[in-house]
């Protein structure tokens, strides 16, 4: 079974500091990884992605790191802002599928003043 896991249900960070959100996957059969942000009563919003052949991708305040040997990816947000408070989902595209996303359970980030 191809699983994507986010073991921390919540995270609280002070404004201006770094937020690090983590995600683990249970096998190597994923081609692409993505992070989505979700506010209440809205759909997930695409943030950033990374191909399985890379180990880092950066876009403004957001950086995604992929450690294939550890089957682990992380999202770094620097500096964190109050508007970043939301639920963050990691998602992965299994090898051999066109574009089916397998989601993690989400981590609720609270950025405090």
């Amino acid at each position: 079974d191809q699983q994507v896991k986010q073991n921390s249900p919540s995270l609280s960070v002070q404004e201006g500091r770094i937020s690090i959100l983590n995600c683990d996957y249970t096998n190597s059969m994923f081609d692409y990884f993505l992070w989505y942000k979700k506010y209440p009563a809205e759909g997930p919003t695409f943030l950033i992605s990374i191909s399985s052949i890379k180990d880092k991708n950066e876009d403004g305040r957001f950086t995604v790191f992929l450690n294939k040997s550890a089957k682990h990816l992380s999202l770094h947000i620097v500096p964190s802002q109050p508007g970043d408070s939301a639920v963050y989902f990691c998602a992965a595209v299994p090898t051999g599928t066109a574009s089916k996303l397998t989601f993690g359970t989400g981590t609720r980030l609270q950025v405090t003043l």
Partner: protein
Amino acid sequence: EPEVTQTPSHQVTQMGQEVILRCVPISNHLYFYWYRQILGQKVEFLVSFYNNEISEKSEIFDDQFSVERPDGSNFTLKIRSTKLEDSAMYFCASSEAGLASAYEQYFGPGTRLTVT
């Protein structure tokens, strides 16, 4: 900025009734998807649609479900005979053509389906 829209925002229906959830994907996107999220659970893939046919579907997407692109702008999900366990938030998504960009899916705000 272009966005995916969904109607209605909330649908209440009785068990056994048919429901149709509607979506308008981003206009230049060619891949379309439905996902659902049961309260407190993960977002789950239901089906993907490209070139007027289903390209992938999950085990959730059984004979009670169907999708259609009835015209150049709408994309619909039909549940023929709703069950209590179909109560969930249903998200439509779309993505551009091309390999890498097809993975970057843009989601609508969702339709909350409540089956009583």
